């Protein structure tokens, strides 16, 4: 399978800087104050860390592993690499910025939102993603996205990291059904 580097560390940081600006703008427009950030394991956590820095939020990050909320357990079974979800703040009535690396079908986002609600009822959720690509299977759209690269269906984009961050595109992987 052919793999090529699509974006390197510095370019990704630049992208996140732009995302931070848009996120701040959205939060202000909607009147969402004192937001807390939650990243989706694994790539989303790396993006969330940088975004948090750029937004100047001191409060520790929440980390979600959505393995227990997947809708494909019956087909692929238990993810043996599952990590505990850690949300070190009260979710109840908080404005949440939910961060992922790549958004495609949005099944992961569905699972993540369900899990967040099991921690408490948030005041709002703002969805931020580094890469937004086509292939939506659920009526969920990001509020902020860093880049919408034109990708062929059989192309697969993946964030490696955390140091350095690197976006890679690989050839014929069929990633359509991966949440």
């Amino acid at each position, binding site marked *: 399978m052919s793999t090529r580097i699509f974006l390197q560390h510095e370019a990704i940081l630049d992208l996140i800087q732009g995302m931070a600006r848009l996120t701040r703008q959205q939060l202000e427009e909607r009147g969402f104050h004192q937001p807390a950030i939650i990243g989706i394991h694994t790539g989303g956590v790396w993006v969330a860390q940088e975004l948090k820095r750029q937004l100047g939020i001191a409060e520790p990050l929440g980390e979600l592993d959505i393995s227990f909320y997947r809708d494909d357990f019956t*087909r692929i*079974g238990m993810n*043996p690499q599952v990590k505990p979800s*850690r949300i070190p703040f009260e979710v109840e009535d908080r404005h949440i910025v939910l961060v992922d690396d790549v958004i495609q079908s949005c099944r992961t986002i569905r699972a993540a939102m369900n899990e967040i609600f099991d921690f408490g009822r948030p005041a709002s959720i703002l969805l931020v993603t580094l890469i937004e690509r086509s292939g939506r299977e659920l009526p969920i759209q990001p509020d902020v996205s860093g880049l919408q690269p034109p990708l062929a269906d059989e192309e697969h984009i993946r964030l490696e990291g955390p140091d350095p961050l690197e976006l890679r595109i690989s050839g014929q992987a069929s990633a359509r059904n991966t949440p």
Partner: protein
Amino acid sequence: MKHDLQLNQAGELRHFLTIEGLRRPHLEQILDIAESFAALPGRQVKKVPLLRGRIITNLFFENSTRTRTTFELAAKLLSADVINFNVGVSATSKGETLLDTLRNLEAMHSDMFVVRHSHSGAAHFIARHVNPGVSVINAGDGWHAHPTQAVLDMFTIRKHKGDFTPLRVAIVGDIQHSRVARSQIMALNTLGVTEVRVIAPCTLLPAEARSLGVHVYHDLETGLEEVDVVIMLRLQRERMDGALLPSAHEYFQLYGLTEKRLQRARPDAIVMHPGPINRGVEIASEVADGSRSVILQQVSYGIAVRMAVMSLTLGARAGEQRG
């Protein structure tokens, strides 16, 4: 010729019957997944939707409210539906065989049987005869195995000690009649501890104890020297008097764990017990309630470990159907 009943062709756990035959990665995987489940109680909603729509049947031929409850809670925290089936000895005396009972319950479309039975090998027997899609978890069979208890003990040890390899572990008490001890010994050896010791009088040891990969001690104080973990076993009441032991009193004199004796172990040694404890028989209250006792933690970890085993075995079944 001998194929491992509890693994599917991909080597994943599809039943959980015994520690025997499992390799270190199997156990570590259960421990890792349990780690994530152990984090759930901190949340507002304590359950996850992983096994929503699945039916789990607790099939208990031996009364044990405590064990059954932890399995039931584990299943419910995974959003599964639970049927409790307590089969007294009466069912079989009515002429119904175990297989009849099983077929009846299968008709209720159960996805998993959690089995406890007084005969060694009962869980294997059921696993061999259930419909292909159904998983079986051994919740204790005779003197043979109690693998989920052993894994939760390993979980507790890992929480406190981190690495297994340098550890010396002593198991004290009725080894011969203990399914817990057999599973613990196998789990500890699979995880690569330095030494497993068993400490008991000859009447409470199996014929070929050493063949299990343990060092045998008859004297408690010598056996506790330099150990990192002390596991006390429950002494069943029916063993206390009669031909196995003269009295509970003499047993405590020789094998009861007291603070003074515990000083022989390493200063950071932890004390474990699968419960329920007999105060003043195998363990002194000062030790059971003392700072080195992790007995209550074992109970709460038990739920996370059982959730991990349930989701792994039912997930392996998913993998099978896919492949």
